[in-house]
């Protein structure tokens, strides 16, 4: 190896170390942002080294020009989207970036394969090319569907069309047949058929999964892309791609498992689909013997409390009522009420959803409390105000044998009194009744979160001035 080549390769190794270090630092909130910077530094290093490498190779002018044009378009688009998109739309954006990453991995293999396909193609290249394009194409369309579901462009409900299993199996058969063909006789046309079938499979795979399970699916597809990139590394014989791709493939797999665990689901049950419709107003159980309250009563209760703990949940996000909530809390705080927000780790529909939502409404960070921190404080609270949260407050979780069993919950039922704002007796994500609502100290305020919170603020102002 020349000295230049040695330096470049050592640089790639350094970049790989930066990726690992970055992920390591991202495991804890205090160092996470620094971790992302370290990782980005590694990426910048890898790109600069490759530019240098290409320059020493003196290629034709057209390729680099086309490359530069593509980089410009993609870079600007990526930057604009990343800067502009609302905080609540982050998961679909991550999914979109994952889609294009998978797409790029597939395209790279196709280009390399097309170049080689004139002559004989070795088993190793064929195998890794097929794996790369199949995983890449599946990820591309699967991630687009996932993004569409979260964005509301595709229905969030599981799409369980008849014969979907047959269609899926047919597509898998086509992919396998194509792969066998390619081992026997190289052909770009057959590779394209394989790609199309894999892309169709991505759609069929994600459509039956409910919108609420999308974070897990996106994480899984993220691991897929990593694997596709590692395969591209084998095709191009690039150690940097192999290491980075394998790293993401493996860490993404673990993360997928952690995410599924955190919301009490198994990855398999997510992929089987048909669950997690929950985002619509679920079929409501008749409002039995629950105690109702009115806006005026609730407003007075809140205004004269000493300590109020607010428990936000998915309904708050669905109603986009974070600003109204923040306004009410400010109003109460101004009257001397001690207001805190209790943040359950999986409240909402993506991990960290509530942090994101409340940060967007400029809720001061010191008012947020993690579950473990706030749980001992509930017995001291005069009012626990539950806004569109359901499962994360369900005492049934403390018993075995139901869909939320074992999930850690916020101890809302220990508060001196509880006010629950939701539209009906409808179920949450897990689809079961909430025993909290039948509690003696619980009163229900049936309304949309946005209007209810606005009304409460108004009532506090008029009734107690």
């Amino acid at each position: 190896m020349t000295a230049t080549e040695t330096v470049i390769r050592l640089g790639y190794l350094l970049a790989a170390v930066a990726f690992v270090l970055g992920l390591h630092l991202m495991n804890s909130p205090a160092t996470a942002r620094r971790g992302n910077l370290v990782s980005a530094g590694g990426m910048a290093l890898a790109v600069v080294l490759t530019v240098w490498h290409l320059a020493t190779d003196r290629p034709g002018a057209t390729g680099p020009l086309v490359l530069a044009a593509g980089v410009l378009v993609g870079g600007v688009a990526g930057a604009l989207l990343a800067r502009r998109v609302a905080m609540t739309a982050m998961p679909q954006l991550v999914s979109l970036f994952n889609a294009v990453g998978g797409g790029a991995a597939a395209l790279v293999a196709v280009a390399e394969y097309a170049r080689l396909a004139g002559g004989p193609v070795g088993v190793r290249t064929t195998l890794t090319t097929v794996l790369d394009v199949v995983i890449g194409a599946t990820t591309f369309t699967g991630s687009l569907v996932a993004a569409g579901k979260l964005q509301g462009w595709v229905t969030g409900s599981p799409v369980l069309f008849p014969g979907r299993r047959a269609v899926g199996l047919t597509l898998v058969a086509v992919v396998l047949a194509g792969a066998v063909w390619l081992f026997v006789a190289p052909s770009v046309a057959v590779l394209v058929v394989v790609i199309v079938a894999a892309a169709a499979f991505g759609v069929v795979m994600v459509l039956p999964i409910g919108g609420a399970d999308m974070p897990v699916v996106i994480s899984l597809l993220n691991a897929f892309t990593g694997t596709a990139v590692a395969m591209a590394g084998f095709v191009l014989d690039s150690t940097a791609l192999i290491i980075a791709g394998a790293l993401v493939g493996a860490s993404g797999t673990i993360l997928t498992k952690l995410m599924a665990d955190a919301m009490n689901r198994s990855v398999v049950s997510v992929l089987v689909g048909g669950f997690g419709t929950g985002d619509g107003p679920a079929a409501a159980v008749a409002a039995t013997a629950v105690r109702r309250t009115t806006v005026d009563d609730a407003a007075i209760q809140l205004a004269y409390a000493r300590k109020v703990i607010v428990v936000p949940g998915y309904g708050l996000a669905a109603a986009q009522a974070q600003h109204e909530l923040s306004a009410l809390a400010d109003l109460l705080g101004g009257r001397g009420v001690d207001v805190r927000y209790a943040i359950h780790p999986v409240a909402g529909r993506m991990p960290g959803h509530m942090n994101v939502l409340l940060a967007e409404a400029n809720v001061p960070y010191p008012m947020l409390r993690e579950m473990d921190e706030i749980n001992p404080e509930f017995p001291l609270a005069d009012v626990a105000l539950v806004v569109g949260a359901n499962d994360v407050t369900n005492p049934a979780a403390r018993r075995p044998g139901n869909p939320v069993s074992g999930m850690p919950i916020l101890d809302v039922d220990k508060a001196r009194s509880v006010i629950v704002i939701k539209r009906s007796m409808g179920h949450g994500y897990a689809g079961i009744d909430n025993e909290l609502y039948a509690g003696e100290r619980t009163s229900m305020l049936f309304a949309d979160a946005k209007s209810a919170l606005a009304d409460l603020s108004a009532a506090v102002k008029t009734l107690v001035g």
Partner: protein
Amino acid sequence: MSVALLTDLTVFVLAVLVGFEVISKVPATLHTPLMSGANSIHGIILIGVMIIAGEARTVPEYALVAVAAAFATANVVGGYLVTDRMLEMFRR
């Protein structure tokens, strides 16, 4: 099996082991940023695109390079920026 392939395989396996071990018990609030951070890393495919670009000689190849470059760059740039934006909120 060639020595080169075996080496690549060794590197792959070791990187997989690193990946499995590097994620520990992460608080759930960090799941989305961590996913996004891992997502940015596979944007390294951009380097693959650059290699392809150096070898491209025909119009279809140029087309592939252009699209792949746009895709990969969006992955890298957007990925790191969006992760940073999320993590900004974790200041204390």
